[in-house]
């Protein structure tokens, strides 16, 4: 079923070549047993995680704007030595997971890819009103979509993953092999969506969250795509005692999402894997992004930006701010 018409833009082709070269060398010299990267998927906007163990498979590795899964997920509790092709937000997750002792730094070779602007396929699909995309090409800043009886050209900058849009760092924080050169960082800006959300009254925020969560079907794609949801037993699965109900009543689904949001607060790197995995279009990331901002403001901590420092929810200081407990 592989979608054969792959045409990468020149810059992506160059990155892909360098990734292949690095992977080939690492496998050849037995520095790693496994390289985790991306390969072409079966649908036009899909590139998919792949696991390369043999040199002859290295050419499957590719890179472009649709490599949006967070591969840090696949590194947790690995026992073999592994290399991972990682963009900025994957690396941020890796950094935080190293601090949480889920990934051992000396077991992972980070092939860092500076990249600014992964594309969120769901934003593109929303534009097409259900029309099927049969082919996609990128040319400069244009995404060219082709389907039965239509060609549509979109400005890629309007369809970025939210985290790329919010100008989170485009360069990997740490790396062992750098693909290409570090890119110029954009000035971080607060997401207009979060500003808009914060400007709402508490009742309005509550009804927004309730309306979003009511779409949830509890497939747990958000949880399972999240690099920080690695609990051996998630509280939602626990049956004795049963922590929350199993239905899709808003009371049950809300507890799931609110608890998850708090559990990843101060750890979430804002990669948006949760949002992109959700088949029902629930705006899960809103809560997480809000908490990323709150943690930054309250504790001066930004997850995944440095191997130094302790996650605020993993420590206690007598002068920790606590106003939010009394005055939400």
């Amino acid at each position, binding site marked *: *079923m*592989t979608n054969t018409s792959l045409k990468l833009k020149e810059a992506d082709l160059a990155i892909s070549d360098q990734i292949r070269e690095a992977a080939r060398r690492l496998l050849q010299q037995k520095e790693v047993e496994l390289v985790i990267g991306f390969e072409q*998927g*079966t*649908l036009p906007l*899909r*590139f*998919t*995680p*792949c*696991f390369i163990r043999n040199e002859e498979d290295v050419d499957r590795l590719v890179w472009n704007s649709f490599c949006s*899964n967070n591969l840090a*997920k*696949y590194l947790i509790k690995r026992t073999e030595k592994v290399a991972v092709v990682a963009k900025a937000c994957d690396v941020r997750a890796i950094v935080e997971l190293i601090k949480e002792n889920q990934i051992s730094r000396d077991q992972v070779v980070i092939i860092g890819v500076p990249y600014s602007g992964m594309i969120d396929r769901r934003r593109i699909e*929303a534009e097409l009103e*259900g029309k*099927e995309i*049969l082919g996609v090409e990128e040319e400069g800043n244009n995404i060219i979509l082709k389907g*039965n009886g239509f060609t549509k050209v979109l400005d890629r900058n309007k369809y970025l993953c939210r985290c790329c849009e919010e100008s989170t760092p485009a360069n990997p924080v740490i790396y062992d092999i750098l693909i290409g050169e570090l890119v110029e960082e954009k000035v971080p800006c607060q997401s207009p969506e979060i500003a808009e959300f914060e400007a709402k009254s508490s009742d309005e925020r509550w009804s927004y969250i309730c309306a979003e969560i009511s*779409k949830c*079907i*509890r*497939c*747990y*794609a958000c*949880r*399972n*795509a999240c690099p920080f949801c690695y609990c051996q*037993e998630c509280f939602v*699965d626990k*049956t004795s005692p*049963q922590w929350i*109900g*199993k*239905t*899709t*009543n808003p009371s049950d689904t809300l507890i799931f999402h609110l608890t998850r949001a708090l559990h990843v607060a101060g750890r979430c790197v804002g990669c948006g894997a949760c949002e*992109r*995995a959700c*088949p*029902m*279009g629930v705006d899960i990331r809103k809560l997480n992004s809000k908490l990323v901002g709150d943690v930054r403001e309250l504790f001066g901590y930004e997850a995944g930006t440095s191997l130094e420092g302790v996650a605020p929810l993993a420590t206690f200081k007598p002068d920790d701010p606590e106003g939010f407990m009394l005055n939400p």
Partner: protein
Amino acid sequence: MIAKIVRESDLINLLGEWLKEYELIAPVKRDNLVVFDRVDSAGEVLFNYSNTVKSAKELLLPQSETLFTYSSVDHSASIEAHFNDAAPKLLFGVRPCDAKSFLLLDKVFDGERYKDAYYLNRRANTLVVTIGCVKPRTTCFCTSVNGGPFSEDGSDLMLIDIGDAYVVKVTSDRGAGLLEGAELEDAGEDDLASMKRVIQDAEASMSPKLAIEGRQENLESIFDDPIWGPLTEKCLGCGVCTYLCPTCHCFDIIDEARDSQGERIRVWDSCQFSQFTLQASGFNPRLTNKERLRQRVMHKFSYFPKNYGLTGCVGCGRCIQECPVNLDIRDVLNDLLMESVIK
């Protein structure tokens, strides 16, 4: 075969008539997603769509439902069964894959040995009006699983868009009842010729067939094959594929009790979840994604055909479109069959 012609105005009238007698469930757009939902007027119904994000199965098997409530007072107990959803429903605008899925669900919930009263109650009260697929998506593979873009299995009426009108085929007695009293022209020779052309074009546009019918033995022969490991390595273990699937029907039954009262609830479950087969002893025979994904594939393409004589998949392609890591069931099947032939 009875075939009538329904023009746009006729269809609006028909929907209006049906609304008087039935709860009308139809595709609608909600927040950019096409979903089945109850509609109160014909104007809300969406006609121009490829398929809904979730299947129609929850009409017959809701994601969660209370089976009964119970209470105990002074050493005596009372139980009250819950039979909701008794109102007659008309499910309008399903695709042939979803309509066919009801026949597969019937095998499970209306079987020789087990009859599920809750399911049967809803099934008896639900009529199915299907719209054939003039433009199948590339992810559709119904023709590989004994279906097709105009398959009539499971439908009471089948609508086929011939451009300026629909040809309506009556595919059951209940379907005939739906057209009673409506003054509709019989489809003429030209209409039937147009219909034939539309069907041929759609069928020709289908992606190449997978050779999976009747290959249960092949799959069984590689149950222990190492191929399952690499095939399922990227699976995240979420429930997207099973929850969007029209034929996945596994459920869990739980009690939610408070003091002396409680309710017994049935909820969807998924073989992809880590605790699906966790036993009370703590042992789990399906410890990793490999065993879980193998179960999903084997259930649909080996066990279901063996038990019921039908493939347990209708080829709607939802799992392909929505898998967060693009784990494509067609690739999985192709690789498995290839492996089984080599062995």
